[in-house]
């Protein structure tokens, strides 16, 4: 069973939201409803997130991704639809029960860090535990562990405004991790950081995820970030999820022109893998050729392919040869434009 399920979620702001949902279900468009004073932010969003997965929601500003995220922990109440967390319907919970879920099961990391300026780094990290009523000594100990996990040990007594942006967001991450919540909601958490720091933070998140195996819903407007982090990616446009799939699905089989226009800027060599471009039918590579795993990005095949003229062997998860990748295949994959989309363009 999936850890988190969203079933036909709608969120409409403004006038007569319920009526607006009925009209949306009846096929009415977003602009029509806007004219009547209703503002649909999320329309019929459904998806499942498996335990230990990083699920990225990608979309431009105004696509409804932040609204969607806030319905997952009840900060916003859906106009229609359900959110199931471990099979439990969050939309039906009383406020006190919902607060309990937020303090134990679901924590959140914010775009602008949202650290409390009147608390030290340690007290910020301990905030969730404090809300839950964990005794002072224990919560300080656990907060210190969380800070160590994000590489901030020794900064306990500092104040948020004494830290760089990246460090502040690590405190935000530590605050979310300290509660031992299984589900992390990350709202454009790295968007406010400069590119180098952002990359470090992405690496650190992936590194931490290997250890901790959290379930993460990550919001971003940056497709490269989505591709780097996401086990699955949902692309949102105008309140709707227009495609939900793996990075490769989206790159190789974009659902429509909108998605296709996004992926033009993506570094394909880092998203596509040896497994995706190999020729399983070809005979084994010559003796002495390099062997790589199926999930190796194409970028990492450049070196071995340059060294020898011949192809590289791709091994499956058992180490058995599954196929070969040639220079031609790699170049073709990198240069490829999805055929059916190109036809439309």
């Amino acid at each position, binding site marked *: 069973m999936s850890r988190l399920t969203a079933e036909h979620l709608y969120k409409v702001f403004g006038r007569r939201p319920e009526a607006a949902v009925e009209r949306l279900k009846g096929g009415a468009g977003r602009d029509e409803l806007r004219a009547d004073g209703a503002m649909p932010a999320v329309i019929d969003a459904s998806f499942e997130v498996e335990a230990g997965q990083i699920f990225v929601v990608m979309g431009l500003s105004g696509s409804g991704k932040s609204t969607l995220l806030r319905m997952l922990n009840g900060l916003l109440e859906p106009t229609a639809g359900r959110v199931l967390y471990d099979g439990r319907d969050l939309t039906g919970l009383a406020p006190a029960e919902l607060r*309990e879920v937020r303090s134990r099961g679901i924590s*959140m990391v914010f775009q602008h860090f949202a650290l409390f300026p009147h608390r030290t780094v340690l007290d910020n990290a301990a905030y969730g535990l404090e809300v839950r009523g964990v005794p002072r000594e224990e919560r300080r100990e656990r907060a210190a562990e969380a800070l160590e996990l994000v590489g901030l040990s020794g900064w306990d007594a500092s104040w948020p405004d004494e830290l760089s942006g990246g460090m502040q967001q690590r405190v935000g991450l530590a605050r979310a991790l300290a509660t031992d919540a299984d589900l992390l909601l990350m709202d454009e958490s790295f968007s406010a950081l400069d590119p180098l720091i952002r990359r470090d933070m992405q690496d650190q998140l992936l590194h931490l995820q290997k250890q901790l195996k959290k379930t993460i819903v990550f919001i971003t407007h940056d497709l490269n970030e989505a591709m780097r982090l996401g086990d699955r990616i949902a692309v949102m446009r105008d309140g709707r999820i227009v495609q939900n799939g793996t990075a490769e699905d989206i790159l190789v089989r974009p659902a429509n022109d909108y998605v296709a226009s996004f992926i033009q800027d993506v570094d394909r060599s880092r998203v596509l893998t040896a497994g995706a471009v190999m020729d399983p039918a070809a005979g084994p590579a010559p003796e002495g050729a390099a062997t790589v795993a199926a999930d190796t990005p194409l970028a990492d095949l450049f070196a071995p392919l340059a060294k020898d003229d011949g192809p590289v062997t791709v091994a499956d998860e058992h180490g058995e040869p599954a196929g070969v990748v040639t220079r031609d295949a790699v170049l073709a994959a990198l240069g490829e434009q999805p055929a059916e989309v190109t036809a439309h363009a």
Partner: protein
Amino acid sequence: MPRIHLGSWAETAVDWLQSHLGGLFGAVNTVLSGLYDGVNAVLGAPDALLMAGILAVVAWWLRGLAAAVLAFAGLALIDSFGLWDEAMSTLSLVLVASLITLVTAVPLGVWAARNAAVSRTLRPVLDVMQTMPAFVYLIPGVMFFSIGPIPGLIATIVFSMPPGVRMTELGIRQVDEELVEAARAFGTQPRHILTRVQLPLALPTIMAGVNQVIMLALSMVVIAGMAGAGGLGESVYAAVTQVDIGGGVESGLAVVVLAMYLDRMTGALSRRVSPLGRRASAKAARSASGAATVLRHRPGTAVATVGVVVLALVAGGMRLTGGGGDRESVAAGQNVGQGRTVKLGYFPWDEAVASTYLWQNVLERRGYRPDVKQLDPGPLYTALAQGQMDVQFDSWLPTTHQQYMDRYRDKLTDLGAWYGPTSLELTVPSYMKDVNSLADLKGKAGQFGGRIVGIEASAGMMGKLNDTVLKEYGLDGEYKVVSSSTSTMLAELDRALKKKEPVVTTLWSPHWAYGTYDLKKLEDPKGAWGKGEEIHAVGKKDFARDFPQIASWVKDFRMSEKDLSSLEAEIQKGGKGKEKQSAGRWLDAHPGLVDKLAPVSG
């Protein structure tokens, strides 16, 4: 546009409230008086310099050594002006008013910040509270709560409430929405969002509001002093009405010292209580060096507490050893009053001051406890009509104060005239050789700049001057009567006399100005001013029933112009704040007078 009788509705409402909710007002009065008396007793108990020391230690603790030294110097200055008791009573009023205001304003502000409807509703109410001139509700306040500090306290609370509410609301609304969301996202309960996130972060703004509340309270307390709240306001008012420039400056400075002390202390307190402020001052302390460190040195809380406690104990000890009755003992046969309190009110006219303090001395020697209070005429007549004052001695009838007598016809007792006739006149300096009568003014408007310097527009004699006197002598087109205030008129007279300029002013007899300056009353051959008035004593409705003995004494009370002017001169000589002693000295210089004024039978 039809006339909307809002004013008369308000009057009806005030009457109704007075007759139906008397108990409630009584209860409020008791609570507030208790608070005020308590605070005032504590602040007023220690010797002035000791109390100044205690306040200086507080300044030391909050701001540092330099602030403490300055605070002590300023407070000692107030003591040297002889205004210490007034300053402490003003301080008590400010503290009580601010406390009540804050206890109300902060929760209201929090409520308004969390509820848009409340915010919308409060806004116009706060506007009214802030801008409605205080005198408008000071007078009804007197009707509900009697003369004394309470109407002033209520006016102060009303006036200083808005910034408290507004700044609290603003402070909470200013807190970053993402921080509030973060708190919610971690499952914080709504009330903890308030106490753990919003209030701590709003604290600097709220404390700025607290500061505003206290400063506005101080300014209003001074105004309320003019309506009987006492303290420095009364001193300022008394000085101004008597054209006592020096006294005005001194009491004004005392207000300034208190204001600066309160402002700096609340400023420092706000840095103390807010976590962000504490951080900022810790940083500043680290970077300071040398002499600055000494000046900024602040004792720990424990040291400061010990300092305050030691000074307070010394103060307590001094009271124990130095205490003891200083009340004059009254011979048994003459103790008619048996310690009963009788409330004497007066407004700051010289004959009122003279007669009131004369009777204060007489009554005290007869075993009463006369309680003397200065008020404006309006509030004083109101208070008499309400029975909150017992008697006053300066009722000019049948003209000047007739309006009050008409208004409260059944609620006042006329105890008879003790001086008369008075006269109203226009006056010029004696050096105006060729102006001797009202008729001489004709054709000389150029010389006087076409102005007659008048007093308050509401005074009866101003109406008479405009409506009758000027017309009678054909001066109405030539001269313009400038209405101002009695003190302004006297100041203008003083200025003109010093420069030997021509000036013509309204004046009346008896008046001390005739003793102080060389003036000439303009003759009134046509009798346009009408007959002179008489000065009556007026008591509350049941005065003769409550104080039969005093009523009979006052009915027989008469004073000649010679006696009155010598008494006024004695009081003038004794200076402000010593009126009682001066009148007592004058009384002692006239042996047998007490027995004549207040004969004891048998």
